[in-house]
């Protein structure tokens, strides 16, 4: 059989696969890749959707850099990401370890931990808005019952961002916890037994067995969490609108304002391009660093 005949046969055998794949590719191209490319192009244009787009070079970027909120939004976003990692990375891991140690009612607690994930994000935000209500809110009522002073929560620029991080952690820790738990359950039991025979206590077992064995999952989730938290939007949009005193204006909230309040899609696309580049650079650097440390 000639090479070309073999190639034809292989093509014929795979026609179904190509057929099915092409559908997905076209959908991806239409709804994911095309908008990304269009967004990059828009960053250098001014559009009004009536006449042809006007090429404006770096004007949109200059406009962004001149906006006093630009720096504020990046600072707030990095603060949110930092806080979200402290809480959103550590708490689910500790929770997973505790769940892993449970002997009874493990399924029940797994469900309880996962339940918040099933709430729509806006519902979560509105629920916590009531928790945080400075008057009859659940938290301040609790503080009063304990004889402690009220906290302003969302109404103070000192505590608003931390309050949002708590909401985000509570809402999203279920998925992360379950992934950690799955990773923990793949660790062979005999490693722990060997460590125990060598006289290792619970902390040394955690440090020398659990962490190294789940290292890959930890690193991947860390990257995903940074990428996700840098794009925080729902909580500040629903709960604070960026306030008080701009303390919760995030990059995505600013992007939303440019696009849907000021109807300046060029500048909004420019900002999204900057965020895309920042996250891309971070991800590449992160992957390289973790590869190097693995070697």
């Amino acid at each position, binding site marked *: 059989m000639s090479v070309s005949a073999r190639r034809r046969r292989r093509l014929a055998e795979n026609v179904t696969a190509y*057929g099915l794949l092409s559908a997905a590719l076209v959908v991806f191209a239409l709804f994911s890749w095309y908008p990304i490319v269009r967004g990059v192009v828009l960053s250098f244009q001014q559009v*009004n959707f009536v*006449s042809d787009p006007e090429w404006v070079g770096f004007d949109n970027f200059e406009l962004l850099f001149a906006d006093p909120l630009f720096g504020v939004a990046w600072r707030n976003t990095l603060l949110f990401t930092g806080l979200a990692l402290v809480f959103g990375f550590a708490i689910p891991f500790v929770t997973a370890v505790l769940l892993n140690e449970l002997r009874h009612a493990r399924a029940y607690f797994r469900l309880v931990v996962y339940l918040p994930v099933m709430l729509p994000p806006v519902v979560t935000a509105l629920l916590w808005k009531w928790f945080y209500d400075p008057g009859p809110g659940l938290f301040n009522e609790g503080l009063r019952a304990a004889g402690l002073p009220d906290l302003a929560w969302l109404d103070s*620029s000192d505590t608003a961002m931390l309050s949002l991080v708590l909401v985000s952690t509570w809402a999203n820790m279920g998925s992360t916890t379950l992934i950690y738990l799955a990773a923990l359950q793949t660790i062979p039991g005999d490693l722990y037994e060997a460590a125990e025979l060598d006289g290792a206590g619970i902390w040394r077992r955690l440090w020398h067995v659990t962490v190294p064995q789940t290292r890959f999952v930890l690193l991947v989730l860390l990257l995903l969490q940074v990428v996700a938290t840098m794009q925080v939007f729902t909580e500040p949009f629903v709960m604070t*609108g960026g*306030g008080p*005193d701009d303390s919760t204006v995030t990059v995505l909230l600013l992007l939303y304002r440019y696009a849907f309040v000021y109807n*300046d899609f060029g500048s909004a696309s420019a900002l999204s391009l900057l965020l895309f580049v920042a996250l891309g650079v971070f991800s590449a650097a992160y992957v390289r660093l973790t590869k190097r440390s693995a070697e």
Partner: protein
Amino acid sequence: MKSPRSRRVLVSLAAIGLLAAVPACSGGSGEERSADGKIKVTVNGQPPQTQAFERMIFDQDVAEFEAAHPDIDLEPHEGFMEVESFSAKLAGGQLEDVYYVYFTDPAQIIARRQAADITEAVKELPHVDKLQPQLLDVFRDGSGKLYGLPTANYSMGLVYSRPLFAKAGLDPDNPPRTWAEVRAAADKIAALGNGVVGYADFSKGNQGGWHLTAWLNSLGGQIARKEGDGWKADFNNDLGRTALDHLKQMRWTDDSMGSKQLLQDADVQRMMGSGQLGMYLAAPDNIPTLVKQFNGKYSDYGLAPVPEGKGTLIGGEGYMVNPKASPEKIKAGLTWIQWKYLNPDRFDSFTKRYADANQPVGLPAVPNPDIWTGALRDQQEAVKAKYANVPAQNYATYLNASTTIKGHLEPPSAQQVYATLDTVMQAVLTDPAADPGALLSAAEAKVNATLAQVR
């Protein structure tokens, strides 16, 4: 039984069929004529089904208009101005031929060339020259071309709870006339306890900036002043500091504004509607909202002119025309706007329908917005008085002052300016150590940057 090969082909075809089912992007809304040869015009502003009375009136008007204009086929759409989806609708060919706007929108829409120039087309319409010139100016560009028509307006006043005034030993028929009196009244009302708030103000969703603007106008100030070809911020001065100091004293010294802040109109209306609030700055159209949404009584609410009365913020609504509309559609669309909203021949019949349905008549709001000048204004006032069914004495002070207080239009790039000023309001209302002077200086720099970048 089909062979594996034919099954594979079928699956492939199904996949391709699925692709074909992916909707293509729409290229535009407007076919020029309907099937029966009429000029087809899409309009929004149709109230939702939940507002049964307003919806009924609108639909009746559409039917009546079409009967009177057999060559025009109106296609009404629910919805008003949604800034979030405006450009997307325009890009997708889904924006109506005639679309609703707030007074804060036209400047930007005109600058982006997203509305049709109707300067010539309105010359054929009756009564347009009798509209208040300052309202028409909202829809003009720098060279005087016209891009839309105002259909209703409001001016800011002070809405107050008459029962709480009485409970706090204040005279409901003698509402506060100055900010000092507002402060004293708020203090007395807050002293009632049980979570009652004396005075509330907005600080979120650009509404804080909107209200700070109204406050400044009440003191005779303004947010921005024209300078040469451009605009400059005009609030970092004694008037701005006076307004913020006053707000700060009410919030922190008197504790008469409650601890919950970052409020918007819906929050404050809820407080007022549930009898937990004494006063807030609002336009007259808030009163029907309070009564309808919270099963209240018109007699429970009073409306006073804005404190100090040295000026008041005026806003409103109107209609603009899709820039892609043909001259025929523009003409038909404007005919509808004039017939429905700017029609002295219908003053009486339109108002009577509201009165017959026990809807509020007598407020300077729908069905009798204060948009006319001269004889037409007198004619409308007479109709309003004829059918008035709300306790006009509760709004007497507001109505008497409304002709003498100077109206201020909203600043250019209003939404961006308000977003910046939200920050100022939030700081004063949430931080007892906030420094009004420093806040205004910081906001001035931001607002000047915004005003310099109007594009």
